[in-house]
């Protein structure tokens, strides 16, 4: 039992910090740059990503292990997984709009952005690649989403501060954001070697 918990803990730390999906793996950069202009936005996006990521990895894990691996259809993985994600996103959008309009208003505008968020697809792939159990996949996807949100909120905080700063003309806008990301990535390099 205790080793199981230890494994889960390891998954959390490595997924959220050591192998941070944005800063160490360069996955999910588009929403990272696009949605980090304010802390409030970034939290909304983080919530939406977490929600879809967990759902998607559960569904794809089940499909994968009970249908596609037994039938030897591994090569259909890309198509099926992305189809599941696209459908899921749309379903979530429809259901939220009707049943929980408040939540829809809070994260609805981010949902369409999620279909093409490579982080989600990457997590479903990595989840089955690593051969995790269902519980581990759930924990893994939550921690990746946590790492994503942390990176997003950190950058949003920096960008809010950056507005006070005088930035050289040609560095205004995206260039300075990438420099900030570079410094964040250096900081996250410090986590490397934490999990053995």
């Amino acid at each position, binding site marked *: 039992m205790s080793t199981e918990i230890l494994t889960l803990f390891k998954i959390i730390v490595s997924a959220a910090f050591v192998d941070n999906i944005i800063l160490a793996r360069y996955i999910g950069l588009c929403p990272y740059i696009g949605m980090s202009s304010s802390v409030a936005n970034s939290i909304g996006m983080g919530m939406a990503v977490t929600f879809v990521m967990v759902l998607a990895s559960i569904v794809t894990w089940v499909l994968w292990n009970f*249908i596609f691996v037994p*039938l030897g*259809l591994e090569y*259909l993985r890309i*198509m*099926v997984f992305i*189809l599941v994600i696209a*459908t899921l996103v*749309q*379903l979530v959008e*429809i*259901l939220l*709009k*009707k*049943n929980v309009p408040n939540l829809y208003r809070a994260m609805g*505008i981010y949902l369409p952005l999620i279909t093409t968020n490579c982080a989600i697809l990457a997590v479903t792939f990595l989840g089955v690649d690593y051969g995790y159990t269902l519980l581990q996949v759930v924990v893994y996807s939550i921690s990746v989403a946590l790492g994503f949100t942390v990176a997003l909120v950190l950058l949003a905080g920096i960008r809010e501060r950056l*507005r*006070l*700063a*005088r930035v050289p003309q040609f560095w205004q806008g995206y260039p300075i954001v990438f420099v900030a990301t570079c410094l964040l990535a250096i900081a996250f390099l410090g986590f490397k070697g934490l999990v053995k």
Partner: protein
Amino acid sequence: MNILIPTVLVGALGLAFGLMLSFLAKKFAVPVNPLVQEVERVLPGANCGACGFPGCSGLAEKIASGEAPVNACPVGGPKVWAELSRLLGQEGSSWEVKRAAVLCQGGKGVAQVVAEYSGVASCKAANLLPGSFKGCRFGCLGLGDCVRVCPFSAIHIDLESGLPVVDWEKCTGCGKCVAECPRKILALVPRKEQVTVACVSPDSAREVRKACARGCIKCQVCVRTCPEGAITFENGKIVISREKCTLCGLCIEKCPTHCIIRVGKTAALLEVRG
């Protein structure tokens, strides 16, 4: 066989997902006001956010429901507003066109400077320092946050006075500068000639006198002078009623600190120095 199984399987998945999506889309359909879509079509679609709503679709929703005025989109300008008011059946109703005005005259040589400031050249940053570098806690810092935020380059800092000047020809009344100013010195006013108090300080006469030569000292001479009774003193502030004011200019003459000014008189430029 190699081709049949995957084809059937993925086909079945596609069918299931397709049924699910279209069924749920119908079952849980939220009636969308067709007006919203029409409004959105009229709006510029730049999603710039100058209106303060989440994108053009967000604004379209608010305009259609009447929560936002038809002229809420500053970028679209009168053409879009007219189109929208026609759409909403509000034709002929007059919306107020607004412009930004600077309500402070405490520029160089007018307001007291208590310290030399050499920090980050931004009003927001300077305002974080207790008391800042000016004697008046409410006056313009002149570091130009409004200039930088203006999407239409309608504001510049006047070199002589060190205060921002709004060009009413370029200004669209989007209100970004009003939101940006940490001291709330900028305000949106109707685009027409008017008389207004160019000082937002609520301080007492002695404090104001010490800090600035053009501050309102609440002497209420203007209240007594106005032949129309358009000027009142409410909650420690001078209020000039635009309806009653006849723009006679008596108050401007009588004001001992010259803090009442005429706005929008010549070429729509705000005369900051009265």
